């Protein structure tokens, strides 16, 4: 395991984690406000990607990145105003069910409008190349900006790994968003009202603030964040109807592990999961190896060898859920959560 592998795996893990965080932050915000898990959150992520694709086809990627999140945010706000608010008085279960139903409606609508196939949604021309190249030489490691330097072709021992510019851009957007949301919540009057409405809605209302409108704004803002993640995720990976399903479950794992309603928890959990997964894929160790390390003899005759010999890389995809179960057992409120259950 050399230095360039460590570096590139960390970067890959960070980029996946930050993308997850963009999604999880909106979900956790909405949850902390309304006490409702929005099952349609990942669907708004998908709609963000599709809307951005259509705008990109018409006027270019940058407009897509700029316009898709507010557009989808408006959709989210409208959904809150005309559907969610109506069932609010019946309690949390109907609210949960209505978002669950919405996720199915969105999926069918997306397939009706854009078809069932994957779309060719790509990063803009200017962000398609590599941002930098990691050159691993026997003597040590070097970094070079842009495309691989000539040394990669000339020196036989040089192992060059490029890091795509769009991946870095996505990370930058996530970090910028994190700072912006944090500043908004802690340093502005709006943030003050939102935070107060979280814990003491009646008091805030009696001070003359329109609390339902604050809720609508937060719901719209949360879905806009999901859509922003969708624009980056759609262009980085694939834009297809199953993209919501692919991230939906992981995002729930993230906010449960991080602690429901905790922005800091969502950040730590998503980045942590991204890095764990990135390194788990790269590891061929198994439980059998660990047992051997402890001095036990493990071979084909050992009871349950098929289970002990499963490589970490093979279970990388289920690790988030394994963590989810462990957290629920040992620390039900999550890493940074404040409320039980």
């Amino acid at each position, binding site marked *: *395991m*050399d230095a360039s*592998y460590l570096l*590139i*795996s960390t970067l*890959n*893990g960070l*980029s*996946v984690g930050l993308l997850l965080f963009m999604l999880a932050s909106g979900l956790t915000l909405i949850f902390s406000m309304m006490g409702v898990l929005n099952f349609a959150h990942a669907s708004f992520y998908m709609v963000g990607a599709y809307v951005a694709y259509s705008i990109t086809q018409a006027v270019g990627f940058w407009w897509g990145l700029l316009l898709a999140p507010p557009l989808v945010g408006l959709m989210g706000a409208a959904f809150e105003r005309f559907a969610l608010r109506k069932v609010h008085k019946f309690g949390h279960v109907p609210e949960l069910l209505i978002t669950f139903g919405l996720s199915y409606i969105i999926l069918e609508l997306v*397939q009706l409008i854009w078809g*069932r*196939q*994957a779309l*060719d949604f790509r990063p803009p021309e200017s962000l398609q190349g*590599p941002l930098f*190249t990691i050159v691993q030489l026997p003597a040590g490691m070097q970094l070079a900006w842009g495309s*691989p330097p000539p040394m*990669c072709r000339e020196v036989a021992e040089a*192992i*060059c*790994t*490029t*890091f*795509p510019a769009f*991946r870095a851009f996505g990370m930058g957007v996530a970090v910028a968003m994190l700072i912006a949301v944090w500043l908004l919540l802690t340093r502005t009057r709006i943030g003050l009202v939102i935070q107060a409405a979280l814990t003491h809605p009646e008091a805030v209302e009696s001070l003359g603030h329109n609390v339902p409108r604050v809720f609508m704004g937060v719901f719209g803002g949360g879905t806009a964040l999901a859509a922003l993640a969708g624009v980056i995720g759609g262009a*980085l*990976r*694939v834009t*297809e*109807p*199953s*993209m919501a399903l*692919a991230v939906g479950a992981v995002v729930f794992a993230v906010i449960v592990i991080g602690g429901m309603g905790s922005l800091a928890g969502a950040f730590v959990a998503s980045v942590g999961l991204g890095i764990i*997964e*990135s*390194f788990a*894929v*790269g590891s*061929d160790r198994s439980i059998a190896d660990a047992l051997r390390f402890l001095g036990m003899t493990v071979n084909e005759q050992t009871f349950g060898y098929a289970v002990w010999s499963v490589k970490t*890389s*093979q279970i*990388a*995809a289920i690790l988030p859920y394994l963590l989810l179960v462990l957290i629920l057992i040992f620390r039900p409120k999550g890493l940074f959560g404040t409320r039980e259950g």
Partner: protein
Amino acid sequence: MALQFKRRLFGATVAATALLSSGLVFAQAGQTVKIAFMDPLSGPFAVVGQNQLKSWQFMAEHFNKKNAAGVKFEVVGFDNKASPQESLNTLKAAIDQGIRYVVQGNGSGAAAAISDAVTKHNERNPGQEVVFLNYAAVDPALTNERCSFWHFRLDADTTMKMEALTSYMKDQPSIKSVYLINQNYAHGQQVARFFKEGIQRKRPDVKIAGEDLHPLGQVKDFAPFIAKIKASGADTVVTGNWGPDMTLLIKAANDAGLKAGWYLYYGGVSGTPTALANWQGGPVRQVSIIHNGLKSIQDIQNEYKKRFNDDWYTGQTYNGLALLAGAMAQAKSTNPVAVAKAMSGLKVQGFNGEIEMRRLDHQLQQPVIISEWRKATPQVPYSVENTGFNFQEVRTLPSFVASTPTSCQMKRPS
């Protein structure tokens, strides 16, 4: 309900007509043969299924102009969502609609489920038999330990492809260390297994630098896998991946600047050529039964591109209908039992020369081709996915060389 009832009734009429007419000479001419196509038309693999449904329908049109039996083919699409379980539902729906011919290809798991279900159905419902043409699932088990009289495979199976691939790689001294990355299900596991077996026999000096099995259609970011391949120092990657799993893998490899050479099964399948368009790494070679320079397919692929702005890469659609038409002409009937009996051991002219449906195990005997991803030339001008590149032949192994033994003990209807 009413609609379903009508459909069933209609199906029964068709089946009855087929039965009644089977005794008459040339009674099959002019009849319509319905074929149920079941493959993913939604979900991550939809792009592949949609293309292949169009390919079957396009080929049906082609054969409806002229074919040995004088029948009309009609291909009806069913969405099996690439799942074995869902395939059983679509199979039942197709049978209920009176369709007696089934084609499927994407996923050996689904193919095995259909093959088993068809065999059971035929045992329990004499007079309503169904014939299954598997056009792309290449798990060798389907024509070995799990073989069935009612299952016919049109693609070359993994034993044949790996025999051809390792014979070719044997002569490439630059290959020293190979990385295997495959989808974690029957097909991917067999690719890894037969590659290791073949290369050990032919080039024991080649090192297996690493081996990965990843979940089918779930991985959206292959960057960690590519980092691992890079760290292993492999000079060549072998993979049986298909659809988005292949496209995203190639995309990640290109993004990370992986220089290794690639040996693939499915480089030409929808989406992958576009990802290969600005390929910076080593040579990309494919083992399959088709390449873009074949004289016999020029008109077909050009016409398909003109009509759908898409690529016709599933040569099995041609061979499948050629076999069906040949068997119907020989049986003088469209009755599935008679057609299956005629097809077992049948020789016809395919797009890739004379092909034979081996009687022993129903594995089509045909040449296997190694081709390389290169810039289009005046000799091979076709542009795959409008990239300006295509797959050009580097070696063809004739049928008798590509053929591999079978352990199939087939139970034939009396």
